[in-house]
């Protein structure tokens, strides 16, 4: 059952991230740095259902054991809703790995390009080229 749920989430995430640029209201290129690709792993602390972008917040454990909270920008909540997301998806505590590009201003913010769930399912593996198709 759990596996089935994860697969559902995986397919939803894949679909939504694949069109992550939809509903974009600002220049990704201006805000995020193609020369700052990042990979993070952590526990979801909050999912914000907002437009023009949704935000996933995760706690990432540092080497000294402290936690850093990262803000991960997704597509618009409306996109997630239309693609079948429910409030029960990606609840607090879910462990995820993400790939993306960090904000140019150096804050703990990233536009995510890929997510891997705890069971190893790869939800999305792409790059900015594919986002516009």
């Amino acid at each position, binding site marked *: 059952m759990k596996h089935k749920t994860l697969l559902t989430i995986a397919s939803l995430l894949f679909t939504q991230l694949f069109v992550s640029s939809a509903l974009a209201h*600002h220049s*990704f290129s201006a*805000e995020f740095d193609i020369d700052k690709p990042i990979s993070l792993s952590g526990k979801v602390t909050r999912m914000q259902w907002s437009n023009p*972008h949704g935000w996933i917040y995760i706690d990432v454990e540092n080497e000294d054991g402290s936690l850093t909270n990262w803000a991960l920008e997704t597509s618009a909540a409306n996109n997630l*809703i239309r693609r079948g997301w*429910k409030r029960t998806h990606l609840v607090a505590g879910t462990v995820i790995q993400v790939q993306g*590009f960090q904000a140019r201003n150096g*804050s703990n913010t990233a536009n995510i390009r890929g997510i891997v769930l705890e069971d190893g399912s790869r939800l999305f593996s792409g790059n900015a080229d594919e986002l516009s198709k």
Partner: protein
Amino acid sequence: MKNRCFPGLSLLLACLALLPLTTFAQEIPRTDAGLPLLQGIWQAQTRAAYNLEDHVARTDMQAGTSVVLGGSIPYRNSALARRQNNFENRAELDPLNKCFLPGPTRIMAMPFPFQIFQNDEHVAITFEWTQVYRLIYTAGQEHLYPGFEFWMGDARGQWEGDTLVVEINDLNDRTWLDAAGNYHSLAAHITERYTLVDENTINYQATIDDPEIFSEPWTIEFPLVRQTEMKRLLEYQCQAEAEEANGAFEKVDNLWYPAPVPEGNTPFDSNAANELPLPEVISEINRLEDGTPDISGYFTSDAGGANYGLELRENLALFPPARGVVVDPADGILPYQTWARAEQIERREAWRGYDDPTAHCFVAGIPRSHYVPSPFYILQTPGYVVILHERMSYRVIPLDGREHLPDSIRLWMGDAVGHWDGDTLVVESSNYNGKAWLNELGDVISHAQTVVESYTPVSDTQIIYRATVSDPIVYSRPWTIEMPLNQQAEELLEVACLEDNNDLEHLRDVRDEHRAQMQ
């Protein structure tokens, strides 16, 4: 004293008041189906936007009497402290002071006009305040995405006799009910009642049911008065005005009104568009009863990345590629003047991303509203085509052949006038303010732009959209873009952009860092 002088008048008025409303029912405007016709420009006659209850004047509010039936709001004791805190700290806490969406009942009471459009399936209300609109589904349409909250809620209406009854659900808990801090929770459910009591007056009622905050449901009531002298709404862009005033959105002298326009400019120079063959009709199109094409419905544009560049372009950093939608000139290259091309190239730099108005959540302008990656809804009502953009802006296109606004009145979305040419809706627009960008890449437009657009239905699910833009400040000749608009069975959701716009501060940081390096 009055009664002693005119003893018969009070009696007469009392008798008139007792007459059933149906006595006057024949005098109100009605649709062909016999329903009351609410269409028109209206404004609330009330002080309720300041405070729904009795209140004395303050520096930030006019005095007024209560619009709450029974006089006061039945708060639970446990909920009163928050209202008091809201009131005392309203300058800081009132969401409206941040230009956030006001919620469905508060916006009805605000001192700004609004226009109602009505057909068999919808009632749409477009507000002058910040291009906000409400779309009320009135034909029993299923709500496709229950369970998510919206600032303006989800509204479903039905006619009960001559009263439009609207049930509003899925409200978030971030709006206030007035400027005095009256508030509600996620449990709120609102029932509105719109009753046209005479040609120029709607009696507006709203019952707020929120058992977490109030001990019982309560009702507000005030009149909406037809603005008989007003031919069209203008614009009040709350956040844009605030940011222009505080310097967060900087003026561009050579593009914004009233930058000088080269002599010899011919507005609506659509020769280029006229030389293009009409789009080929693929299959039978939908029509209204009178034979006019029916182009109403939910649409998304097949824009080929036009929001990232109108010309053909491969990847550029994190800019997605663009298919190229310019059909005239034939080479697909925009006929920029030299200085304007240099400006467009500079806008690709990261530090210029902050300058794109849509990054600030301002409206996209024309033609960009058609190809921002966000759906829209086209409504047709007698005399109008109305386009409701999910990204919270709208466009009213009157079909009565009226003249354009005076030259000195300038708008983000321009002033549009339309007419049917065969099966094509042709729209001419002018009176732009020159503040928009044509896309995220930074294609340039000025206040001198005039646009001739055509919406040609080529099947029952597709419209071919063209826009011919003339702008003698920026370009050496007019140019035309073209893209299909595809219809599907969907409903509009809400994009409350400004309210959760985390991106702008990042873009500002990039700009400020660049400026610091340049010094």
